[in-house]
């Protein structure tokens, strides 16, 4: 099958790739670009471990054809921190033990990042709904909710540490 050109910007880096049109976004990110921070827990759209931000909105990268993201801007977990400087959410996840095995963590972080970009002061209910799709088998979620909440309370603003 004819490969097609795919032009995407991932974590501010522009890529031009040739892919089969059936390739899913998650496969391109992981296998072509080596961004293995994006995980896959089901490949059927149910677990949301593969969440990335595409053009400002979260999507499940296992449920989007890569070619459909052509021309798009993508953020993955690797694009959150800048150098050693973690984002407030990443710091808060650490402090609140909001991860255990860590396999859902990338997806959680991206869902939470998008949530806070849309609404910087969500209620607990809104936090729950914002990350509702993301399954976590380890934590029971409450630590994740506390971590997001702490960020909204300004505990991780620049210079507050």
């Amino acid at each position: 099958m004819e490969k097609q050109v795919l032009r995407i910007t991932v974590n501010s880096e522009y890529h031009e790739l040739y892919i089969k049109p059936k390739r899913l976004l998650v496969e391109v990110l992981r296998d072509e670009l080596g961004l293995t921070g994006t995980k896959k827990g089901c490949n059927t759209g149910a677990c949301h471990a593969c969440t990335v931000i595409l053009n400002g909105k979260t999507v499940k990268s296992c449920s989007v054809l890569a070619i459909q993201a052509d021309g798009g801007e993508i953020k993955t977990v690797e694009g959150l921190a800048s150098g050693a400087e973690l984002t407030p959410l990443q710091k808060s996840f650490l402090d609140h033990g909001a991860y255990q095995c860590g396999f859902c963590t990338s997806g959680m972080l991206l869902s939470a990042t998008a949530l806070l970009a849309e609404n910087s002061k969500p209620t607990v209910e809104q936090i729950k709904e914002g990350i509702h799709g993301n399954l976590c088998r380890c934590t029971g979620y409450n630590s994740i909710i506390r971590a997001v909440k702490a960020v909204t309370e300004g505990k991780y603003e620049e210079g507050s540490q």
Partner: protein
Amino acid sequence: MIRDFIYLKANTVEEALDLIDQHKEDYKVICGGQSLLILMRQGLVAPEHLIDIKSVEELNYIQFDEKEGLRIGATTTHRTVELSPLVLEKFPVLVHMEENLASIQTRNWGTIGGNLCHGDPAGDPGPVFMALNGAVKIASKQKTRTLTLDEFFIDYFETVLEEGEILLEVRLPPIPPRTAVVYEKFNIIKNDQGIISVAASITLNNDGLSCNDARIVIGAAAPAPIRAKETEKLLIGEKISKGLLEKAGEKASEEADPVADIHASEEYRRHLVGVLIKKMVEKAWEQAKAQVK
């Protein structure tokens, strides 16, 4: 495993219809792919040509006009509907429905058109649009037609769409005065597909007491969402009472035709129909009454 296909991207409706026409012997339309890709992965769908309408911007709109009502283009995402101030003002039930539909990620990429055309009897928009007396505009290269949503769903994952046709938009007439429309689904995990869902539209007479019109739709209780017409008849002309609600619940659970699966027995589903009908009719009735005052 997804089989290889030839990928064709349409940017306009015209392009889409042309592409479909050219490849009508073996094609499939993809929009958000939230449902389609699952089927393709299972090998249940393996088209030679995949025609992508996701970027057809001319179908990405929500418009309202006092006479015509609301029009939602097929490629509008669930999330756009959910966050639309216009929708919130004119058709709040849609916002409520969307907030409880799958995850944000699914709503960010999945579309209204794709949802309807997937024809899942447990889908949420279908019953609500039916209760709202909605219609759909459908086009092929040869013709354009408009159908009511009542006519749209045929069977499990089957709609009236014919080869070569795509759905262009959903039309919802303005909600008549003294009318309230409500929707709820029963599930164990929030935002899961409903084990049973019920949408109810109740219009009251000027007296604010008796029912002038009712549209009651049940989802996940038959091969397609169904109008509970006998239940509607039973309500029209009546005043609300415990007894009436009780009867409506009973009637609707007779009208439903659910099947057992791993999530619920047939009997339990029928029971849920009764429970939800009572709850929804009462809720719509009260909201409609509040408008009269």
